[in-house]
């Protein structure tokens, strides 16, 4: 009884592991195809702009609210700790650095993945199962170029913009938390943040969101574009894309943090 259960557990695990590595290999090949096709005419600039506006507007409220709460909460959490060490004056700077270097980019990317990657997966998946992608192909239009390349470019370029917006909103949240417990002007707060946050904090923090944006677009497009088995496949493409995109964002964050610390050692 126990042996058969272990056997079935191992079989299921092996299938899931195989699927995971198949997906990773598929993503790699899909990525290569993107870099091959992104330079081929026509560039579909209007379509990229349209997706940037749509995806940006769709995500703007939720990332704004999240950014505000994160800024507020992280400051409320750190304030008593800083007080314990007699370092309250460093509160704006340390919160600013946390938000600019890590919290802003990663939180925005994770919310963006949840909102956008699943949307792209569902939209392209639905187009695949209803033969709209085939229809595009027979009408002499390259569907990969029109549907996939434009979406990946849009997510790659809109996420850094959203991140800058979230960082700004989070700093406002943080200032409100500071004002609740101590008397500090907005000018002084901003001055402390600017004094503490260096070039080596801001540029890598925002730059890595280009990679995160690329991951969100790539994963959603890959799973949607290759969706199978009707509506069930569309649902799977939508949910799986969130899981894989979020996981890849965290893995690449780890790699990019190491890389930025190596490139900008003064920031350490």
């Amino acid at each position, binding site marked *: 009884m126990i042996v058969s259960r272990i056997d079935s557990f191992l079989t299921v695990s092996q299938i899931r592991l195989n699927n995971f590595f198949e997906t990773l290999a598929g993503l790699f090949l899909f990525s290569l195809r993107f870099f091959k096709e992104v330079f081929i005419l026509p560039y579909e600039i209007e379509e990229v702009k349209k997706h940037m506006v749509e995806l940006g507007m769709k995500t703007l409220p939720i990332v704004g609210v999240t950014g505000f709460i994160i800024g507020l909460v992280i400051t409320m959490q750190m304030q008593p700790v800083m007080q314990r060490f007699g370092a309250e004056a460093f509160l704006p700077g340390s919160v600013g650095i946390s938000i600019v270097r890590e919290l802003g980019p990663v939180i925005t990317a994770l919310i963006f993945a949840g909102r956008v990657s699943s949307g792209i997966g569902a939209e392209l998946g639905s187009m695949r199962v*209803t033969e*709209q992608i085939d229809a595009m192909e027979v009408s002499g239009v390259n569907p990969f170029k029109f549907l996939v390349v434009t979406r990946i470019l849009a997510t790659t370029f809109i996420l850094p913009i959203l991140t800058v917006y979230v960082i700004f909103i989070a700093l406002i949240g943080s200032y409100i938390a500071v004002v609740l417990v101590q008397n500090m002007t907005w000018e002084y707060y901003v001055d402390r943040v600017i004094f503490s946050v260096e070039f080596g904090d801001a540029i890598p923090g925002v730059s890595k969101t280009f990679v995160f944006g690329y991951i969100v677009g790539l994963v959603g497009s890959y799973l949607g574009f290759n969706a199978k088995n009707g509506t069930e496949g569309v649902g799977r493409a939508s949910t799986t894309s969130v899981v894989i995109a979020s996981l890849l964002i965290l893995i690449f964050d780890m790699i990019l943090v190491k890389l930025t610390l190596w490139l900008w050692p003064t920031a350490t």
Partner: protein
Amino acid sequence: MVVFGRSGTGKSVLLKCLIRLMEPDSGEIYVEGQDVGNLDHKSLNELRKDMGFLFQSAALYDSMSVRENLEFPLIRNFDLNQSEMNERVNGVLEAVSLEEAIDKMPSELSGGMRKRIGLARSIITKPKLMLYDEPTTGLDPITAKEISSLILELQNKFHMTSIVVTHDLLCAKIIADYAIVLNEGHIIHEGNIDELVSSKDEFLQNFFSDEVINTNGRD
């Protein structure tokens, strides 16, 4: 020409291989004297401009209006100015009698209207060869008859060759001057519709018996 056959016998696959949406396992396919399987991307696109495909579900782009659906292949494949494009859009909408649907979204259209717009989008590039995958599936008998008559009308008006995959004998009787019957990937019978329907062959008698009853019922 109409292609008959049982479900899963390869009728739709045949159409998709003709336009290289699928690759055949073996053999060669020639369209307008060109080996479809060996064409490069550019030549294949050129060939596809001469071919139209009406999908079973019409496959209209959900995120685009009817006008955008119709303009889509024109913008990307032809060097037309806006007035030439309007002329073509209005022309095909008039041909399918749906001029009023120009600014509607696909979700606002009925099944029959979607098929008509799908048909309009397929013929807007003025193809020489039209491929129809089950054009009357999912439609009520009256609409199915209307779509079949429309296919014939457009075929004559635009001088196109049509290959129609269908189970609908009435549709076939309206459209086809020639028919083939597929079974397990092979052509097992060919001829005109009346010959096939009145054949003494056991397979054909079984195949057409229900269809004849349905057709007579509709007539």
